[in-house]
């Protein structure tokens, strides 16, 4: 039987040799053993090749310092999936490790410090990571710097009046001002007040008595003298972001029926300075105790709800609030620790213009600096040489000139950098502003009213200097232009 077992082994080897090519030929791309090992090694190397990408945030507002924790989001825009997120260090730099490709980096944040908050948005769509190694790119961040502590500002002042239709003179019973929330958050304020500083006009000779040794006499005591009377919102006022509140000082009716150049104030959203029932505590006659002059303060249009009536505390002598038709210095302030009524009725807070009779005609109340939210100084354009400032430099360092009786208003300039920095304004801003008066115009070139009608959010400039912050505008914005 020996022959029979070796015959079986040769048969199995022959079958195996015959089957081997069949087995081997199933894998068509089957490489050789050396080649198989190389392919496996190459595949493992492609998945882990990343490069350092340093992203530096550069803020458009040079007053803004870089800070740690600004988020950056990086997105590949040429096919690969993946979103990378990182945060900056205290120098505004963030390093990410990413593979080669084309990326877009976006940063969007709101940063706050004690006074301001900064809405930061930046995008760079041209980030290229190549095999050469580490890459470094800047992201230009546009910053909208907004006042977090005092977001309410005076946006527009209309006090000069217009000419009457029959040519008989001027019509100045239609004064108003507009308060604006210059921030991205709603603001609620109680005890919000309006006041006007002594002297009524910047060019008045009364101003000579307000200065001593080249400084305002009250500068050291850090108060501002508000003359004749103040108005205050009776309830807490809430203003939505980038929205305005119109306060009608005189003539809250449809003045255009008589005077076509004037303004129609019969609008349910407007607020009115109307308090004919307030009685001054010290009087010498039974009449003229309150601001009840029906020519200056006619009963407001009945569409305006009584919840929109501002209240007054009158301590001076007048039967209408004598807000200057030429050059008023207006302040917006908030009383703290007491109501406006308690504040202005307290004889201990009275102050009299030096050198003038200590009586109701020259009486002012002392408004502490800390209470003042905003102040605007308007001067008579024809009397600049003889005008003197009523506000110290840290409230308002400049002035804006007005030529009155022509329907002109004082309008705040747009903060070009901040407004353009807001992402929601893209494509909505209207340029080509042409409503300035003479040399006085908005340097930003942005037509704020037209842009707001377009849905833009306007941020106004507030550097506490009305020379730079305001310009003289041909028409009141409430006339629809």
């Amino acid at each position, binding site marked *: 039987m020996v022959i029979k077992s070796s015959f079986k082994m040769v048969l199995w080897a022959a079958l195996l040799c015959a089957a081997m090519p069949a087995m081997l030929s199933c894998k068509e791309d089957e490489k050789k053993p050396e080649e198989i090992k190389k392919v496996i090694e190459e595949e493992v190397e492609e998945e882990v090749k990343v490069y350092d990408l340093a992203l530096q945030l550069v803020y458009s507002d040079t007053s803004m310092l870089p800070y740690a924790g600004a988020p950056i989001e990086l997105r590949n825009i040429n096919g690969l999936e993946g979103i990378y997120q990182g945060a900056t260090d205290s120098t505004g730099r963030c390093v990410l490790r990413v593979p080669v490709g084309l990326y877009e980096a976006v940063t969007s944040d709101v940063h706050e410090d004690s006074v301001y908050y900064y809405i930061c948005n930046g995008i760079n769509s041209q980030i290229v990571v190549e095999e050469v190694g580490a890459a470094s790119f800047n992201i230009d961040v546009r910053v909208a710097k907004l006042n977090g502590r005092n977001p309410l500002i005076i946006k527009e002042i209309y006090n000069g009046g217009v000419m009457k239709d029959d040519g008989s003179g001027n019509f100045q019973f239609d004064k108003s001002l507009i308060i604006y929330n210059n921030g991205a958050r709603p603001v609620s304020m109680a005890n919000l007040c309006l006041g006007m500083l002594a002297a009524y006009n910047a060019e008045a000779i009364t101003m000579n008595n307000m200065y001593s040794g080249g400084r305002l006499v009250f500068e050291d005591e850090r108060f501002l003298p508000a003359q004749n009377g103040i108005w205050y919102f009776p309830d807490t006022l809430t203003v939505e972001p980038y929205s305005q509140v119109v306060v009608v000082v005189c003539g809250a*009716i449809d003045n255009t029926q008589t005077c076509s150049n004037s303004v129609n104030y019969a609008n349910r959203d407007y607020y009115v300075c109307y308090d004919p029932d307030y009685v001054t505590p010290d*009087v010498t006659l039974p009449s003229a105790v309150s601001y009840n002059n029906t020519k200056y303060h006619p009963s407001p*249009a009945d569409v305006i709800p009584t919840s929109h009536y501002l209240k007054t505390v009158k301590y001076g002598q007048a039967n209408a609030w004598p807000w200057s038709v030429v050059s008023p210095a207006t302040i917006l302030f908030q009383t703290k620790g007491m109501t406006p009524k308690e504040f202005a009725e*307290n004889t201990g807070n009275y102050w*009299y213009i030096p*050198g003038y009779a200590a009586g109701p005609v020259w009486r002012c109340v002392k408004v502490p600096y800390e209470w003042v939210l905003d102040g605007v100084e308007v001067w008579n354009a024809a009397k600049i040489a003889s005008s003197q400032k009523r506000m110290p430099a840290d409230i308002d360092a400049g002035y804006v000139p007005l030529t009155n009786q022509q329907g002109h208003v004082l309008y705040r300039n747009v903060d070009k950098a901040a407004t353009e920095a807001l992402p929601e304004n893209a494509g909505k801003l209207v340029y080509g502003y042409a409503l300035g008066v003479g040399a006085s115009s908005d340097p930003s070139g942005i037509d704020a009213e037209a842009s707001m009608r377009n849905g833009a959010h306007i941020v106004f400039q507030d550097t506490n200097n009305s020379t730079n912050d305001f310009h003289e505008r041909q028409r009141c914005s409430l006339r629809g232009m």
Partner: protein
Amino acid sequence: MKRVELLIIFCLVQTAPLWVKAQGGAVGGVVVEAASQRPIEFATVVLLESGLWAVTDARGAFSIAHVPAGDATMEVRCLGYAKRVVRIRVPLDTSALRIAMPVADLRIDGVEVVARRRADEATTSYLIDRVALDNQQLLNLGNVVTLLPGGKTVNETLMSDGRLSLRSEGQEKGNASFGTAIEVDGQRVDNNAAMNETVGASLRNMSSADIESVEVVAGIPSVEHGDLSNGIVKVRTRRGKSPLIVEGKLNQHTRQVSIGKGLHLGHGGVLNVALERARSFSDVASPYTAYERNVVSLRYSGRVPFGGGGAVSAGLTGNWGGYNSVADPDETLESYTRVADNLLRGSVELRLLLNKPWGTNLQFKGSFSLQDKRAEYYSNASSASSQPYIHSVEEGYFIAQDYGAAPNASIVLGPTGYWYVRSWNDQKPQNVAISLKYSWNRHLGDVVSQLKAGAEYGASGNMGRGTHYEDMRYAPTWREFRYDALPWMRNYALWAEERLQLALAGGGSVVLTVGLRDDITHVKGSAFGLIQTLSPRVKGRWVLWDAPAGGGRRISLHAGWGKSVKLPSFQVLYPSPSYSDMLAFTPGSTWDNRAYYAYYTYVAQPAFNPNLRWQYTHQTDVGVEVSWGGVKVSLSGFLHKTFNHYMAVVQYSPYTYKLTGQAAIEGSGVAPANRRYTIDQATGVVTLHDASGAKSPMELSYTERLGYNSTRRYINGSPVVRDGLEWIADFAQIKAIGTSLRVDGSVYRYRGVDETLFPANTSGVGTVDNPAYPLVGYYRGSSSTSTSTVASATVANGREASGVNLNATFTTHVPQMRLVLALRLEASLYSYSRSLTESRGRSRGIVIDDVNGFFGPDYDRSVRNKYVAVYPEYYSTWSNPGQLIPFAERFAWARDNDPALYNQLSRLVVKTGYPYVLNPDYLSAYCSANFTVTKEVGDHVSVSFYANNFFNNMGYVRSSQTGLRSSIFGSGHIPRFYYGLSLRLKI
């Protein structure tokens, strides 16, 4: 009535012993013109002692019978000729006198360009003749005081309506200008019927070209004149034959032309016709702001064939003029103002020379005056909102209604848009007066007695309609007050005066005048009823010496005392109601700007004060005149104390009123277009009605307030004292240069401090829960100086002032050249005034360190440059107004214990406005020089030129009150540089 009986008895006593006159005779003669010896007709010849007079006829002859024997002074005057005074002895040596009168022009000696002191009066009296008036070129008679001693020149223009006021200055209590009487040809010009002022009469509408002379009695006037307290100014117009006189005057702001002639009519009469046109404007660039007067005057004087002699004169003067700005392009669009100042005055005077044992003269005067001071205003108006036009005349609450719906509503809503309003203020003051005067001159031994007695009646009223509007649709807040519905004011007077004169050896004489006057005033319907007062006046003169030797030597002394009562004006006797309106309801304005306001009206009828006494003045006047060699010095001093001058104060009565606002309407559910309102007149509750009928009427909620209604009351203030000295020194003319010097001046002092207690300020706001407020403060002493303003609380309650003025006039008269030049230096050497705060000799105020203080040491006069505060003496609360609580203690207590009360009481404290208010004000000396020249060219032409302040003094004066130096230019102390020219033609 007792007083009237006394007067009658006084007269009878005089007649009881019929003294037989010593045998006298007739005096007759001829009056001729000195140069041509032609007889002069209508010359008046008066024998001063006996009061007998005559008028020359066509042959210049006159004759007076029954002249008592002895020395007599004969005065001959005629228009256009210089007055002649001749001393005669009766019976006459010659059968007929021949009196030559030189023509009054610059060729004669004794030309005076300033006021002449009247030496023959027993009181201080000045005469200003035509030459002085021409030289000064007066336009407005009110400025005649510039020619009195110490007087200051003002630039003449008709645009200012200054009133005449003797021996007093501005800003003084006691209504001095109202108390200065003015008489034109015996007819009083008074301002009693003026509704809006208590000041002297306006003299702007009187012709200044037609005046012959002005006599100013600054001292004690005769009892013949009543209803005054400060002296009288008597104006005489030209009467008599005269050539045609054409005069033109111009200065920087005025043009004046006048023509006058005395025509000789047949049968012994002369008609004087005078026409004048004067126009002044205030701005050379705009001649439309002008005031003009056009005066026509006719006066007849003639003889009346009556026993002893008689003369009649009648006059009629008319003026139309005023102010008209229709053509003024500076007015707004079509607006204009037209103010008329038209006048018609007439008078008749009859003088009869009785020359009987029981009477010498009888004079009858009647006069009337009609004025039209109607002003028309046409003005442009516009409004965007409908304004309430309040016409309510009852007390209560009224709501505004549309004019179309209710044209007679108490409150009408005015229009919106543009329109014109035409209104008038119609004032037509009128008065009528008649008087009878009887005089009896006789000798009682050596004493010459001149007795005068008379009776007067005068009535004045105002026939104007007051303010009224053409179209009631546009009439703003206004209530009708018709002057013609007011009663007339009637004055009756009886008076008697005795003048006794005794000649002494050496040429001296003694004169004593005693007079008594009884004034009765009646206003029908006035709560004051019949008002009667007595004014006694005494004056005397002692001429020590009157010798013609040595160039004339004369020394005389005079002294007098008198009481003058100034009856109140209409403003005080019959004051008009005043209305106060409080806003009570303020609904919102509709779509077409209409707001139906409601007001609470309070009708303030001025309270009748049964204790009101009549204002009177005690005048004391002394003086001395010395003439020695060629020098004449006269000195007179006066002391006037005015009692019970009229003052207006307020009286408070508490009340509550309701306020309703738009808030009450908001929740009603009635649509704005359907809202209709009514208000209850008594309760003030507003009811809202729904015009659609869907909702029933609902009463609106309200808040109640406490307040005070105020009414005006006239009371008497504290006495006011004025005293002073006036002097005139005339030096003899230096013949070589024809220049004479006159130095005159005055010293003047005034002091007026008031001590009356009156309410003034209020403090605090009251509600029904807290009815203590408002409080009322009661203050002692007011500083007000006029009855038009109500006394208010002030730190100063009085004032003292004094001043010394000195004038030097150099007059150069060259008769050969017919030229007069005058240089007048007016200097104010001393001027002091000080506001006072004092009460009953004690301090009235406190000194505070800074203006916010309320406590401090007492004030005394030595304090300088400090703020001073004055507390009210008392205060009262709303709930208990009758209780007066002493202020000072309570105030000090409240500071520590009741902050709320302290806050309100502190509002009643009054403080000086500036620290220098109570400082004495010494003004440094200043002066100004005026120059006038008059030249006659031939017999027919005369030219005058004047320049005021021709050195154009640009110096400085220093005021010690403020310590400031200010320029005298334009300050009002001296007139601005001014000049004028006038030309006179006599044809």
